[in-house]
């Protein structure tokens, strides 16, 4: 019993399916409350920035997306590694479900970064910005993972091979991030408005924290839904899935 029992129970697809189903409404509720509160606080209550005006308000979408892109990659690599080491199909299922979400959040971070860049830098895309560049590389890593998975017909092989790629990738993510950061400090162009670390006030910060929690819960909700779909797809030949489908359609 205890931890190992709990850990092994996660190898059972119906158990994980029910677990994800039970977690879904919690995540959804949490996301709803915090996103609405955070958006109200960020868009209405927080004062306009004295340098950037109302333009700064995009951080309430940009920062959570960028953070979730990173979180999704780490989550994907960790569960892929667990799946590889203990041969747990459900952990691979979680990694597969996290990958497209992470790619979308990273993409969202790039787009909102570009929209933010227009009033700040005068251009949508600034090659010299380290954060944009390392987000772009993260997006490529996600896409590489997805494309590699899709190239295998055999699901088990796809699981195990892509797990190795994810682990190699997660070791590389900080190296890529810091190399790009050093590179951009070397090539600091005159066009970049060198904004100091924004001394963010409490009434700006609290909505941001709310949005971070809300986005994470939203991610958790999507992840549970995707994981359920992934499990149904993987286990479609088993009796419990067919009974479940029959029960749902009846």
């Amino acid at each position, binding site marked *: 019993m205890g931890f190992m029992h709990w850990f092994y129970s996660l190898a059972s697809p119906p158990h994980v399916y029910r677990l994800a189903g039970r977690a879904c409404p919690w995540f959804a509720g949490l996301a709803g409350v915090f996103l609405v509160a955070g958006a109200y606080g960020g868009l209405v209550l927080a004062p306009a920035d004295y340098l950037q005006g109302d333009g700064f308000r995009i951080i309430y979408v940009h920062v959570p997306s960028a953070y979730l892109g990173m979180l999704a990659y780490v989550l994907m690599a960790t569960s892929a590694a667990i799946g590889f080491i203990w041969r747990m199909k459900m952990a691979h299922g979680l990694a597969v479900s996290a990958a497209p979400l992470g790619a979308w959040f990273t993409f969202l971070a790039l787009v909102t970064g570009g929209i933010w860049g227009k009033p700040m830098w005068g251009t949508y895309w600034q090659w010299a910005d380290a954060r944009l560049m390392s987000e772009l590389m993260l997006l490529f890593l996600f896409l*590489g993972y997805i494309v590699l998975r899709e190239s295998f017909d055999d699901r088990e092989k796809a699981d*195990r091979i892509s797990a190795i790629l994810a682990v190699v990738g997660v070791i590389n993510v900080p190296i*890529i991030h810091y190399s790009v950061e050093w590179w951009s400090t070397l090539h600091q162009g005159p066009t970049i408005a060198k904004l100091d670390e924004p001394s963010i006030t409490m009434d700006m910060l609290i909505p941001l924290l709310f949005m971070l929690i809300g986005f994470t819960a939203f991610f958790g909700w999507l992840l549970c839904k995707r994981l359920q779909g992934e499990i149904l797809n993987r286990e479609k030949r088993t009796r419990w899935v067919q009974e479940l489908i029959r029960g749902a359609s009846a």
Partner: protein
Amino acid sequence: MHIFLLILKRDLRLAFRRWNELATSLLFFIIIASLFPLASSPEISQLRDYGGAVLWISALLSSLLALDGLFRTDAEDGSMEQLVLSPAPLGVIVLAKITAHWIVSGVPLLLVAPLLALSFYLPLEALPVFIAAIALATPILSVLAAIGAALTVTLRGGGAIIGLLMLPMMVPVLVFGTWATEAAVQGDNPNGALLLLASLAILSVSLGPLAAAGAVKVAME
């Protein structure tokens, strides 16, 4: 004889018998580098500005091409299965294969790159740093490309995917390599970038073969 030396010797012999494949990746490197002046302008000042970048990008691309078939021919003729089944640790075998490939593709590149660098008007004083940076970078590139080759060994159109998988991971090599080159050209101290390249080389040579071996093992199952 130790398994490392045995595999190294075997792969070197095979490589020299198929010398056309060796020449391909080296020529690829030279051709990419010589396309840039055509695409841009051949003025000395401009060549000097982007010459370093051109050589580094050419080195990245040609390393991908050179290692594309690292495991494929062995996987196709069945000898890879024997290597996987052998009692020797697969990581050592993979390291030997990568070393053999580095000798036949990395070392010629090391010899040709300085000549190309001179043709891009890289100052003579900067040449030792450039050679040192390329010498540290080619093993990293070989290991990364080998991981890509191992991940895609059973896929039909492996080559293009390797680029997508591995080029983002080669970014640090590109950054530190061009940084060292640029520092040397401008008379700054390039040691920081060289040391970073050296630590990346140690990291990739010690861990990379294990990742590649894991991927080969899965692919052969």
